């Protein structure tokens, strides 16, 4: 049965149903309802809700809980995610799975609290220092937030790496009908690497990211990047909407993809051949879907709530085979379908 939930609350409930019983947070707008929901629900499932002293402490509590082998999560909004960068880098360097939620708001600095997609670079290129990647999932509906949370936990466990849900204030605050998975339906893998006490039955496990011998560190990083290649081959996700015959292909994710979809529908009503590629994974980037669209499209138009942070990735993915244009708003402004349609018409 479908229920009506805010995106933030749906993320929280879906995480619990994905077997995450350890949540560590710190208040920040516009992710507020997520932590509040966790504080209500976790005691009901004998889980842990802990309001940490900072985002830094919260991500390191996640690091500790994940080291112990349980599914753990934290959530924040843009300025808070900057603070989590340290812990995310350490988790990547220690091969620890976890889920981090960023309900993005305008930046830089304290920025604003309205919806934004200006943390794309941070999420996909530089969540923290060092050679590493994290999985980045970009839901565009409340239902997809629910579906991607359990997928994010499963994929993070499978590849032993952190995963981020890159949402925004619009998706977090809006309500849509959702169908939740059954409670207790999560499939929790055994984690033999975890630091949970060896009980005298094995050698000690060490969760660590320090390697003072450069040869050793290089080797470990290279092994990790081989794993990333497997992720790139197997884990790309994208939706292709009316792209088969499209002359103009929009590329947009998350909230801006909702606007782009409306613009595509308006364009089709006018008889214009317009489609949309919607990346669902931002890392790995869905190069396969983009190349399918690039094989016949005359123009790409990237639509974002940022100054165009995804544009370079689109160009690289299709090797600049077709011109890639950009339209975006930033600072918490949301583009309208009419604005996007005007951009499309200018290209035709």
């Amino acid at each position, binding site marked *: 049965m479908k229920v009506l939930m805010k995106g933030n609350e749906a993320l929280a409930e879906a995480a619990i149903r994905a077997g995450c019983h*350890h949540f*560590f947070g710190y208040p920040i707008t516009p992710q507020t309802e997520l932590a509040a929901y966790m504080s209500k629900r976790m005691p009901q499932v004998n889980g*842990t809700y*802990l309001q*940490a*002293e*900072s985002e*830094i*402490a*919260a991500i*390191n*509590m*996640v*690091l*500790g*809980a*994940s*080291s*112990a*082998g*349980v599914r*753990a999560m934290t959530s924040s909004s843009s300025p808070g995610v900057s603070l989590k960068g*340290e*812990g995310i880098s*350490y988790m990547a360097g*220690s091969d620890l799975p976890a889920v981090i939620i960023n309900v993005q708001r305008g930046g830089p600095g304290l920025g604003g609290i309205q919806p934004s997609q200006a943390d794309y670079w941070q999420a996909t290129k530089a969540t923290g220092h060092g050679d590493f990647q994290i999985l980045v999932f970009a839901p565009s509906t409340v239902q997809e937030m629910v579906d991607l949370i359990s997928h994010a936990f499963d994929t993070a466990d499978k590849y032993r790496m952190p995963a981020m849900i890159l949402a925004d204030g619009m998706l977090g605050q809006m309500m849509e009908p959702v169908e939740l998975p059954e409670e207790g339906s999560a499939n929790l893998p055994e984690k033999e690497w975890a*630091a*949970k*006490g*060896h*009980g*005298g*039955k094995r050698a*000690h*496990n*060490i*969760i*660590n*990211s*320090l390697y003072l011998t450069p040869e050793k560190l290089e080797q470990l990083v290279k092994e990790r990047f081989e794993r990333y290649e497997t992720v790139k081959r197997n884990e790309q996700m994208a939706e292709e909407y009316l792209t088969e015959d499209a002359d103009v292909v929009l590329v947009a994710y998350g909230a801006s993809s909702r606007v782009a979809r409306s613009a595509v529908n308006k364009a089709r009503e006018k008889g214009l051949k317009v489609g949309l590629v919607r990346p669902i994974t931002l890392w790995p980037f869905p190069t396969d879907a983009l190349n399918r669209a690039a094989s016949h499209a005359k123009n790409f138009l990237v639509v974002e709530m940022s100054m165009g942070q995804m544009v370079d990735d689109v160009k690289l993915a299709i090797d600049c085979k077709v011109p890639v244009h950009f339209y975006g708003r930033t600072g918490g402004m949301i583009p309208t379908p009419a604005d996007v349609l005007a951009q499309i018409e200018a290209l035709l």
Partner: protein
Amino acid sequence: MAIVFQKPSTLTDAPMHYCPGCTHGIVHRLVAQALEELGVEGKAVGVASVGCSVMCYDYFTCDMVQAPHGRAQAVATGLKRARPDNVIFTYQGDGDLAAIGTAETVHAATRGENITVIFINNAIYGMTGGQMAPTSLPGQITQTTPYGRDTNTAGYPVRVCEMLSTLSGVAFAQRVTVDNVKNVNIARKAIKKAFQNQIEGKGYSIVEVLSTCPTNWGLSPVEALKWLEDNMIPYYPLGVYKDVEEGVKK
């Protein structure tokens, strides 16, 4: 032949990297001995911090996690909340615990996290080569206080046990040192008690160990012990600062 003294089974055979005269080795032994005597090595998880002791994960035989700088008690909180039946301890230096990790320390303490904290106070940053620590003494010469710590510009040293003992979440806080056999025995008992408290669910327990850093102090091991006795102990009085017999957990 009777064995009168041996290495605890809870320490690995890896050769320690610590400098001659450094007291880390003694404290490692005391921690390992407590785990052995209490029979909890199999369910212990230690959290190594950033500093000279960062590689203590190679020396303790229990499961180990290495935390980002200053975050050991947040990591320990995550571990303990995930596995309340395990025995979780952190091993931290003064820069880690009382500078970059002050917030994590104070809040783990005030939450009354049921963990054991071993705090090495040697009044200097050792691993990075002898910079001023939050616990460096007034007038103390370090790499970054070449004219001596000027309290007008660099402020005063932090007295951790005194500060934490004001918090309701702290069950046990004791300052010890390991400069002679008598004090090593006191330290051994304090560390064991800090673990025993956790097993009994009493709440946050911290043992601060005044330690030496002959290399960065520019002293011989013997001179370093003398410097500790003449300078550190007067500023950081030894003793029990808090001991809540019934624990802080309701």
